[in-house]
């Protein structure tokens, strides 16, 4: 027997016991909880039924939690016409209602920045708290910012638990059951697109959107990060995101990047297009363009 670094002696029996325990532990982790995208179908089904039961009890409404999978041959992209947006914030509030964001403390996935026309897109000079009686204000333009659904997403790389990842259709999602609330992803995101539930989220009684998706707008607990999912509960069923449908000036466009006849492809091929913070090589799938 050789003494270890602290002078203690490890017997053959002790070593064998420890090794056996470690091996058993390693095997047992395979039976324990798993991330949602790793769950076998029957266990996901059970987990979803359990969620629906819990939310119905909590909110007094019948909630459906979908696990609609990505559609084949689809990669979502978004385009926003900066020359049309008037900064009315209809999108912000439609998003809050569609995606069950907390009203108090306030969580909003879309933030609209007011900028001066002479200065261009400059976030250091931008004001998200503008509140004039009417918009658009003279000499200003508006840049709404939400999750840019990056192809090279910095947020998913830093997650220590693997609770956030990019789906095959390009949507960056969060598994609220695996998020430990470390907020590394918020620090990594250059667009401020991720939001943390500092308090218990509140949705007014009867106001819960009961059509939910397991990786999207299902009710969140306190202490997890959430973000725009391109309305995964709508878009995987072929519908437009809520912000697209509500925009009164039609500045928001959405579609399949792999479909050459889609609206976003027409925009990318025919309009002046830019992405935010291009120099960071995040490769956003959220494009800004000038429609005029």
């Amino acid at each position, binding site marked *: 027997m050789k003494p270890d670094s602290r002078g203690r002696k490890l017997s053959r029996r002790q070593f064998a016991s420890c090794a056996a325990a470690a091996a058993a532990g390693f095997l047992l982790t395979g039976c324990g909880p798993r991330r949602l995208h790793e769950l076998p179908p029957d266990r996901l089904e059970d987990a979803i039924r359990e969620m629906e039961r819990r939310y119905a009890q909590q909110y007094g409404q019948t909630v459906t939690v979908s696990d609609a999978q990505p559609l084949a041959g689809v990669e979502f992209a978004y385009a926003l016409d900066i020359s049309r947006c*008037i900064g009315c914030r209809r999108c912000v509030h439609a998003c809050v209602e569609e995606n069950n964001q907390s009203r108090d403390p306030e969580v909003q996935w879309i933030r609209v920045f007011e900028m001066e026309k002479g200065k261009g897109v400059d976030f250091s000079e931008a004001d998200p708290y503008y509140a004039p009686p009417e918009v658009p204000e003279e000499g200003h333009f508006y840049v709404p910012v939400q999750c840019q659904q990056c192809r090279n997403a910095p947020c998913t790389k830093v997650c220590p638990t693997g609770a956030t990842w990019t789906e095959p259709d390009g949507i960056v999602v969060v598994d609220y059951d695996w998020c430990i609330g470390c907020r590394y992803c918020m620090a990594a995101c250059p667009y401020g697109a991720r939001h943390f539930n500092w308090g218990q989220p509140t949705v007014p009684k009867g106001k819960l959107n009961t059509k939910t998706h397991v990786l999207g707008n299902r009710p969140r607990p306190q202490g997890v990060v959430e973000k725009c999912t391109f309305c995964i509960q709508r878009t995987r069923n072929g519908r437009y995101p809520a912000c697209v449908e509500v925009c009164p000036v039609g500045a928001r466009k959405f579609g399949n990047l792999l479909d050459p006849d889609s609206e976003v492809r027409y925009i990318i091929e025919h309009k002046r297009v830019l992405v935010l913070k291009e120099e960071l090589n995040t490769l956003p799938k959220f494009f800004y363009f000038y429609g005029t």
Partner: protein
Amino acid sequence: MPVNRARRDLTEFHTDIVLKHDEQHRWCLDCHDADRRDQLHLASGAPVSFEESYMLCGQCHGEKLRDWRAGVHGRRTGQWNGHKTYLLCAHCHNPHQPRFRAIPPMPAPVRPSRPGL
């Protein structure tokens, strides 16, 4: 009664309509048909129904018509991969005053509060 095509102050009818749409060069009967008032007509004189008014608008705003046909100008609702609901030009733009009117914004986000502020 003969058709009066002259530009004038309307005193009896349509007094609520204010024309702010290239008003130096346009007058009612440039778009509305004098003989069939339930129709519009193109510059060529060809009649156009109100349901196809985009053809009339597209005479001047050709690049908007092109973008609208591609689904890029104007609002769409429905399915991104299926049935879409289109709106006509006049659903959003008042043809007599096409510029969008300013509207009140929805509430601003609350500013973060810090102790001492």
